[in-house]
């Protein structure tokens, strides 16, 4: 039986960039005890000799011709932007204040 504590879930939520209330963290922690128990069955069946499958098609290095084709205009690309400035996406502060 694997379980995740409230603090474990809080750490995962931080990594996934989702703010969560204390109630949500506790609920998810309880649910994960059941869910992880169910999905842990995958560990019962495959031996070390079984190769993993990441994708149904055996494709690698798929290229198209390197030809310039019409694409979105800057106006179209910015059409859904929550905020914009000088034909660019305006975003909140990413780096800390310079010293």
């Amino acid at each position, binding site marked *: 039986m694997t379980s995740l504590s409230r603090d474990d879930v809080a750490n995962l939520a931080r990594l996934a960039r989702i703010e969560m209330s204390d109630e949500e963290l506790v609920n998810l922690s309880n649910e994960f005890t059941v869910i992880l128990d169910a999905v842990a069955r995958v560990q019962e069946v495959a031996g070390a000799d079984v190769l993993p499958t990441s994708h149904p098609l055996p494709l690698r290095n798929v290229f198209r011709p390197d030809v310039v084709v019409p694409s979105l205009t800057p106006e179209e690309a910015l059409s859904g932007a929550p905020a914009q400035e000088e034909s660019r*996406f305006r975003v909140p502060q990413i780096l800390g204040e310079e010293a």
Partner: protein
Amino acid sequence: MIHLSAAEMATRLSAGETTSVELTQKHLDRIAAVDADVHAFLFVNNEGALAQAADIDAKRAAGEKLSPLAGVPLALKDVMTQKGVPTTCGSKILEGWLPPYDATVVTNLKRNGIVILGKTNMDEFAMGSSTENSAYGPTHNPWDLSRIPGGSGGGSAAALAAFEAPLAIGTDTGGSIRQPAAVTGTVGVKPTYGGVSRFGLVAFSSSLDQAGPCARTVLDAALLHEAIAGHDPKDSTSINAPVPQVVAAARSGDVKGMKIGVVKELNGDGYQSGVRTRFEESLELLAAAGAEIVEVSAPNFEYALAAYYLIAPSECSSNLARFDAMRYGLRVGDVDGASAESVMNLTREVGFGREVKRRIILGTYALSSGYYDAYYGSAQKVRTLITQDFNNAFEKCDVMVSPTCPTTAFKIGEKSNDPIAMYLNDIATIPVNMAGIGGMSLPSGLAPEDGLPVGFQIMAPAMKDERMYLVGAALEAALLTKWGAPLLSKIPALVGK
């Protein structure tokens, strides 16, 4: 006229007995009359649909050669981008977003002159089996408005069953086309992975997602399948090979000498008695049509559900990282001095619903250092074993069959607080996605105990999609003879509307 099949509508259009504008208006009127009860649509594009219809009518009047389905209306699942038309994926995080481009499926629909009526409801980002996870409220099953229409593509399936559209587009990651088809008495096909482009399909689990046709008849599904399928340079996982001849197969329906493999593990315990009754009856009808029924075993299918609920959440936790409040969609908490990270955290808290958050967190855990091999790695190995099960079984048969779902439609709210019970809906549909092969669900009748539709699932090897249509057409014809009228003519709800 709205009760005709898409093929019959197309015949009347080309014979000049009706116009696309008239046909489209009749469907828009139907939507206006019943969708307050059904809630299949998130957005109805009255003006856009009528403009597209008028354009087709003008081309027909000018003598242009048109595609087989030109002028026939369709409902589009809201997970597909359509330029300038709201696309939400059932999520608050994309509320109000107008995509600046068309999905390749939409480009193909437009090229074939298929009229897009609007966008259909779905579980948020296609995560769910009941359409209850839509941020915009649930869709109701036209057979019984207190029941779920399946999911994630419940809106598309309900639109067909309520005669709001003769054709629809769905997407199927673990059964999201087939399970809604089963519980609404309609037809749904998940093509071979790579058969239909994923460009413009908002990604949930990229190695499993596949768009496909939804309809009320097998032939209609085939006509739509050929209209949307084919290689697309914009999707690196698109198969560069000729599209399987599914329309010819649907017109033939000849199953003489075909070997149909009944999957031993997808029957029996856990399957409702009426579901088993209808399944056995369908096997008898196929045998009478000349097919040979054999039993096949797929011992690793019992691990498919567990593997799916690691692989899909893992891929979703990565795919949904794109909803970061920076370039499009919702942005919350962008006050003076707020950091980008805090804006992301607050936006994703408000923008995502409970199930989406649950899967993102589960996927983040399954991919994290120290747990990767035990969870995601083991699940990938199970995927190999399931594919081997299919390969072994297909040496003994041409197609494999099972009930599509263990039960008929359940009540709205009945399972919404029990994720494991909800996930069990997909137990028979998930193996197909894991192996990337094709799967179809078509109606096999009503369960005697509750009078609700039951689905029959047909699975075919990769790029042998035509086999599903051969078997589906044969069964559909035999059942029609038995019933005397299509199953949907028996639908009790919405009478008088």
